[in-house]
């Protein structure tokens, strides 16, 4: 699944010498953004408000949350590659996985099994979350997206928004409006020491398992028959059909895979933030979409890198950039950073960081 033909928003090359209004605006924007960012970064470093330990914490947290974003972004990127559809409901599928993991953990915790068998308990959480999210994703595709396979683009997008609300509000109705807090097993208590810095065990667990999942996914997409079929469909649906690939099955498989990875991401997200809520899927969903675009949509390794990059930016940027301006409470601006990055990517590099290079190499 590479980025070659997933680039509908690629600007046409203009005749040199003719400068249009839009280019002027976009260049002015770029220059302003770069100059402000540099100025604030310099002033923030000069102020020297954060110790090296704090910077390390920020980066470590960024990598943790970034690997969760990466897992979510994989679902977006695979679905977009195959169907050219932004699966707006993907954030809600992540939320469903988080809830599933929570209920498994809570029921295990009430009997004390979660503390006695940490590996088994963790595996059970992941397995149930994976099944629930994958199942919901497949159902969504079957009943809400398949009728629009050949419809104009606005229709499936609006339907996806509808699905997103239906899922979100159903969970609200099922499980109530309140926050539910994830159980905190003993084996996640002691911090782990890396390079002399103390890192919470949750972060180590999340990052390492996320890496395992990502490697597994990469192998599925690139080494198995179904993965090859997926990449073929994302290259060209018609030719793939002619080659005897059952597109419906590939699409179902893609949704199942993306949903399953999303469910795992949901459990990790719950473990990191220690709570579940029916609205929790929305913001990480949108951010992860930005990460997917950042890595070049349809590009699996790109989504992983994009996610981690976004996580680090979101975690470090408020301290690095906004503190320089003397803005009060910069940590409130985390979402702001992520959304600004999302918009900047959509405007300036809709084909992603690697998109163009890959396209050129193939062309």
């Amino acid at each position: 699944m590479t980025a070659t033909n997933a680039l509908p928003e690629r600007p046409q090359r203009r005749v040199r010498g003719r400068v249009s209004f839009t280019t002027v605006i976009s260049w002015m924007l770029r220059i302003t953004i770069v100059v402000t960012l540099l100025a604030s970064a310099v002033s923030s470093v000069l102020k020297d408000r954060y110790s090296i330990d704090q910077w390390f914490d920020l980066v470590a947290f960024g990598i943790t949350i970034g690997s969760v974003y990466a897992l979510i972004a994989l679902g977006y990127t695979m679905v977009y590659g195959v169907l050219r559809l932004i699966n707006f409901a993907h954030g809600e599928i992540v939320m469903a996985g988080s809830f599933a993991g929570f209920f498994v953990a809570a029921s295990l915790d009430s009997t004390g099994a979660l503390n006695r068998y940490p590996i088994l308990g963790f595996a059970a959480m992941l397995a149930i979350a994976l099944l629930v999210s994958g199942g919901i994703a497949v159902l969504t595709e079957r009943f809400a997206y398949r009728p629009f396979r050949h419809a104009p683009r606005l229709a499936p997008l609006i339907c996806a928004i509808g699905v997103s609300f239906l899922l979100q509000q159903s969970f609200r109705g099922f499980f109530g409006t309140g926050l539910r807090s994830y159980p905190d097993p003993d084996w996640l208590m002691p911090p782990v020491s890396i390079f002399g810095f103390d890192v919470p065990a949750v972060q180590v667990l999340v990052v390492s398992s996320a890496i395992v999942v990502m490697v597994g996914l990469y192998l599925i997409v690139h080494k198995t028959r179904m993965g090859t079929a997926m990449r073929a469909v994302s290259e060209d649906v018609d030719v793939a059909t002619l080659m005897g690939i059952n597109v419906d099955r590939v699409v179902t498989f893609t949704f199942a895979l993306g949903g399953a990875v999303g469910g795992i991401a949901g459990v990790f997200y719950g473990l990191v933030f220690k709570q579940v809520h029916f609205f929790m899927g929305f913001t990480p969903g949108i951010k992860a979409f930005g990460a997917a675009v950042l890595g070049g949509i349809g590009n699996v390794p790109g989504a992983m890198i994009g996610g981690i990059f976004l996580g680090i930016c979101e975690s470090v940027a408020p301290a690095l950039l906004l503190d320089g301006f003397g803005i009060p409470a910069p940590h409130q601006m985390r979402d702001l950073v992520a959304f600004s990055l999302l918009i900047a990517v959509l405007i300036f590099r809709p084909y992603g960081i690697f998109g163009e290079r890959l396209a050129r190499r193939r062309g």
Partner: protein
Amino acid sequence: MTTAVTTLPVLHPARSLARMDMTLALRAGSVAGIVAVYAAAVGILKVFGQREVIVDHLTLGHVFLFSLAGACGAYVWTRSKASIRLRVINVVIAGIASGFFLVALIALMANVNLRWMFTALSSDLLRSLIYDRGAVGGSVLFLGAGALGAICGALLIGLPQTPRRCLVWGLSAVLIAGVFQELIQIALRFGWPITSLRTFLYVWRGLTLQGAMIAFATAFCVCWALDLGRRHLRRRRGPADIDVAIPRLRSQLASAVLLLCILVVFPLVAGSYIGQVMMLVSLFVLMGMGLNIEVGLAGLLDLGFVAFFAVGAYTMALLTADSEFALAHYTSLPSLTFWMALPLAVLAATGIGILFGLPVLGVRGDYLAVATLGLGEIVRVLVISDAAKPVLGGAQGILQVPKPTIGGIELVDPMHLFYLTLVFVLVAALIAWRLEGSRLGRAWTAIRDDEDVAQALGINLVQCKLLAYGLGAAFAGLAGAIFAAMLTSVYPHSFSLLVSINVLALLIVGGLGSLPGVIVGALLLIGLPEVLREFNEYRFLFYGVLLIVVMQWRPEGLWPSPQRKREVRTPRLG
């Protein structure tokens, strides 16, 4: 298909048909049953159960379950191709199957504690539905009612057209009279003859059994009489006389005028609470017309629309409020009145609209939706943040925004505010209507259909798109300014993404690109949940379902514009 077809299995046709019908019945029944269990788990059934249609006899929950069974019976009846006897059996099976799922839920709830997981599954939920009959009696009741409902549905669909229509009218009349009893009772409070009608039909809690019968009989007879009259007319005129084009246009115009009359007169009759609801509806109509320019005409899907609404509201508040955040408080600007601030608010929103438009000019299609969503969220985060608190008041918002005055009289009554908004809506509708057919409107439509072709035809994309953003934002800014004056305060929490989704949903449901559609959509999606307060909690659930259902089965919306209807209904060539 490359498999050999030489050995087709020989099946007994009648038996295979019967088996097929059986699976059809079971499947239809299971779908209905699963929907019922879902409704129970999500809590809708509980809410429905609290709304009485006929006092002490029938709640909306019963109606919901019964019509679910009826729908699956009707479906089986029309789809089944077997003999009548088999069809009846199938219908009954489907009905029982639909009831079976709730019985299973009762059994499950009796043995397992589901409450810690599903908050809505409390024991009193089903008790009210089965009239306190216990688990066994309740189960029998559910199965029997399911079968009965399915048979009723099949009967209804099997009847000839005239009695069916009359029955549907009668049942709807009872439903409306029961569900909207508060409104109707308020409307019936005038004078002697009407008041006695009210005591005849209603007790204070709702519709009586006697009242329900009267409502049913009246609607049934009216429908029958209308039908007779219509048939009589047709016989006298002859069938050839029916001209299609002109009467349809005239009837559309007539119904549009009727809609407007309802908008104007209804709040007068129904009291000041309805005035308030209609005020909200008309604000959303304003916003809907703005978003209609962006999405319906120019095809720019904007999910950050609420930002413009917020800009209008905050501008109004900053310019007129009597608080420490008002501009007049710490600058030399004078404190403005509503009427002076209104054009400024609209102007500010337009400016922000164009500013929003500038960066996302080059972004197309679904990316645009996400980009605008991000912009809207950025505005929200900024408004709530501590950084903007000294200017915008943070999460506490800005208080003491004055209400508008006309000739020294302050418009306090929601009814007056409603009529004020209505005037704005009419002006805005006139503008939107004239824009639609104008050169600019046609350019927008061209951009929506194909951007590249539009550009090749000499349409200035930049200018047109920016105008779409600016004008759309102007409508939203106007709505926001009125909103601030209506609430006399501005909070950031009023400007969440949900407002954008609200506006989009009402556009889709009413019909993209259609002005009367906006009004219908706003009445349905904003007005109805406000009137039926207990459903308010589930309104976004219903929106989600509505979006999916409308996109799948009626993509042109409930009141489509003629052009859009043509586009959607004619299959594409090539």
